[in-house]
């Protein structure tokens, strides 16, 4: 029996098209072209996070120059400052920050977990106490979608009832069921279904039955894409990957799968193998500001003394603007003098992430993804006995054996 929400979505054309360009015959990986209102996006894709309508320290031109096709904004933060009305006046978040490609906005749900002292959840929504002026705000599914409609993002996320992945017990089940009800309310509240894509978020914690129940219900809704939520929050990696692969097993093939909050290189490669297409994480850009540069063999703490006289670039093979011009030694010194040191590393880290995904995609298209995985792991870890066991298991589950 189709609900009002379901009937509503069936009538309207979706502003999203997914073209599957290649599928890995060994793993569950796919390479796709995701056509969104502002531009096409090549998947698998890593989406940098620009929480408050900016990627920290980077201009939109620089971001575009690195080949970024989609990045994130955050509903909670932007809803607080500068607020949806102002952004609407500015022609949406695209107009406000002058980003011409795609934007994905998170619903504000995750802040419930990250700012948990400030929030209280009930069926209506999430009550937040504003950290800026102490006022109480209710973030309901309707309010979240209304803000996201004002922001005008190409992909909007439903407001979900988020529970930390380390929580167990009846709260997890309650949150899962509520997320389904909130999904329906979000669908009904979407004023721009012809321009903005609303993604559902699968919940259920680390409980396979709950996940499955959530998948069964949510996949009945006609949404253009699905996110896998409630993970990447400090849970055991062994549980993490099992929930990811369970989810992709039951998500429709012809719709994009977005794994939220994942950004470490190893996690990205493994989860692509498990069937995910889209990823976001603050890690690469946040760690950059602490001087940590990401490289194929791990990371480099540029601020450490050992790099004071290291005159090589961060990665001699990296074509990013930072590596083309500057040495580790210069960046090490610059950290003592100017904030631009952070920007150099941020640019490099974004370049690293985007290059990684580009290479992953190409290897899928070329039909050699399993080989890519093997050489990636070899480069990342000094020896096979250092391979994380969860990664070995996860890859084995999709027929990739590492030495």
């Amino acid at each position, binding site marked *: 029996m189709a609900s009002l929400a379901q009937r509503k979505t069936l009538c309207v054309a979706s502003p999203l098209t997914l073209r599957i360009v290649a599928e890995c015959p060994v793993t569950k990986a796919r390479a796709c072209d995701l056509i969104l209102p502002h531009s096409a996006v090549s998947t698998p894709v890593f989406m940098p996070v620009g929480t*408050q309508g900016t990627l*920290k320290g980077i*201009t939109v*031109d*620089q971001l575009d120059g690195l080949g970024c096709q989609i990045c994130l904004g955050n509903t909670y933060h932007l809803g607080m400052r*500068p607020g949806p009305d102002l952004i609407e006046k500015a022609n949406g978040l695209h107009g406000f920050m002058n980003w011409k490609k795609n934007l994905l906005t998170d619903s504000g749900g995750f802040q419930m977990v990250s700012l948990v002292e400030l929030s209280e959840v009930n069926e209506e929504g999430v009550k937040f106490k504003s950290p800026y002026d102490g006022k109480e705000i209710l973030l309901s599914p309707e309010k979240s979608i209304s803000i996201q409609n004002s922001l005008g993002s190409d992909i909007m996320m439903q407001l979900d009832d988020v529970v930390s992945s380390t929580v167990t017990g009846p709260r997890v089940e309650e949150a899962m069921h509520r997320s389904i009800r909130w999904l329906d309310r979000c669908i009904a509240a979407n004023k721009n279904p012809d321009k903005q894509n609303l993604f559902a978020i699968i919940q259920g914690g680390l409980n396979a039955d709950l996940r499955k129940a959530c998948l069964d219900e949510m996949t009945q809704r006609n949404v253009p894409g699905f996110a896998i939520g409630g993970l990447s929050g400090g849970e055991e990696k062994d549980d993490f990957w099992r929930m990811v692969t369970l989810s992709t097993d039951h998500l429709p093939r012809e719709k994009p799968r977005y794994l939220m909050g994942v950004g470490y290189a190893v996690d990205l490669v493994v989860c692509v193998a498990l069937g995910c297409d889209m990823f976001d994480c603050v890690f690469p850009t946040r760690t950059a500001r602490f001087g940590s540069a990401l490289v194929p063999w791990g990371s480099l703490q540029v601020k450490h003394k050992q790099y004071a*006289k290291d005159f090589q670039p961060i990665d001699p093979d990296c074509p990013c603007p930072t590596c083309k011009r500057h040495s580790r030694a210069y960046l090490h010194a610059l950290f003592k003098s*100017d904030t*631009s040191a952070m*920007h150099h590393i941020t640019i490099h880290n974004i370049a690293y992430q985007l290059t990684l995904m580009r290479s992953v995609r190409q290897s899928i298209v070329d039909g050699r993804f399993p080989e890519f995985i093997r050489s990636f792991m070899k480069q990342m870890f000094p020896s096979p006995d250092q391979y994380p066991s969860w990664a070995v298991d996860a890859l084995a589950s999709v027929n990739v054996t590492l030495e």
Partner: protein
Amino acid sequence: MAGSRIKLELSRVVQGESRLGVLKGLGRTGQHCLEVPGCLLYSHLGTVPHLTQDTLHTLKNIPAVTQVTLSSVAEHQEVLQEFKGGFKKFAGLHDTVVYCSLHDPAALCPPGYTTNKTVSVWGSGGRIELTVAKFMAIQKTIQPDWYQSMADGETWQSNTSRKRLRKSVDRTLAHLDECLTIHQNSQDLQGVEVFGVVEGGDILEERARSARETAKRPVAGFCLDGFQTGSMDQTLRTQLIKAIAKELPEDKPRLLQGVGRPDEVLACVEAGVDLFEGFFPFQVTERGCALSFSFDISLDPERAGRAPPAVLELNDDETCRAGEGQPNGEVTDGDQTQMTSFEINLKDKRYHDDFRPLVEGCGCYCCVNHQRAYLHHLLVTNELLAGVLLMIHNTAHYIGFFSTLREALANDKLDLLKRRQVILIATSFSVTVTPDGFESAALSHLGMESKHPRVKINMTLIWLQE
């Protein structure tokens, strides 16, 4: 010693003092030039604050000379020694001339650390004491295109005694002689130019002596030290600079340290200064402000002839900003961190829904791509991008100001504007609110007390505030 490769070609000298020309022969191969009056590109360790090369190169007409300071470089002496390739290569600077100054004009040094044989700079790890030997050793590792010789400039405090000022002149000359000796015997510094430093505080005779003596040495140009914004009022500064200029050769450039405010720049150009340190845009950026003064010398009679009715009306809302942070309206026009009337404070609530560019008609990356409301948001949320965008705009604006300054000197706009009797209004002033609520302003002088009865200022630029 071989003649300097740096040549100052003057094309005009206005009223016997203001000079217009080109500084040629800069750089090791002598292929760079810098128009004067002009400013240097201010940097932290060779990087323009907040900017990477991509964002920097959105700017047009970037000054050909980048200033690096020993306060940022000295602590990396060992690294540069091991690197062996010189500072430019170390910093990834490909196509610029590097000038090395002793101090950072945007960072005041604590006084009391200068001795007969040493001066101190402050790096990220604390104080570094420099003898001439150490100073020169560092210059050898930096290999700048030109540098100022070591100087005792601790004279900017008011009430420095005559005895102390005399010492600063003597010491600076001694340091210069020692620097030059080492320089002339150093293979590494072949082709590098040295500027002598004129000291003497606020005492005319000492200033003249310092200038005269320094001019006897084989230096490529002169730094004028101890005139930093806040150290003295403009009238005195003008008087002293003119006195110095009388003792200096016409064909060598004069670089004024520590002065960057547009009104002060203007007055100092009139007194005979050629080069300025370009740190003012950075200071404006750090307080979340955008340079917005108009330097339009358009010939539109309507515009040029409309003298602002009264200083009080000019600046209107903006004046309120200038006095911010001064609870009892204390006049602290010497405070370099104080907001000036040349800028708008983007943190102010009024900009939250202002969708205009920072400055209408400004072609910089920030003004072409972004709006005041967005900058306001970035500042309120403490986002790093605010600094990037403001630095771009403020630098562009400042470069434009110097360009117009040169144009005014070149194009005889003076007569036309004199006739229109437009008065140079730009001043920085603090606002005091008197008990009856009446706002008054204390003007800082611009040489308005010129001896010439007919002409208030020989260059007219209208600061149009919004």
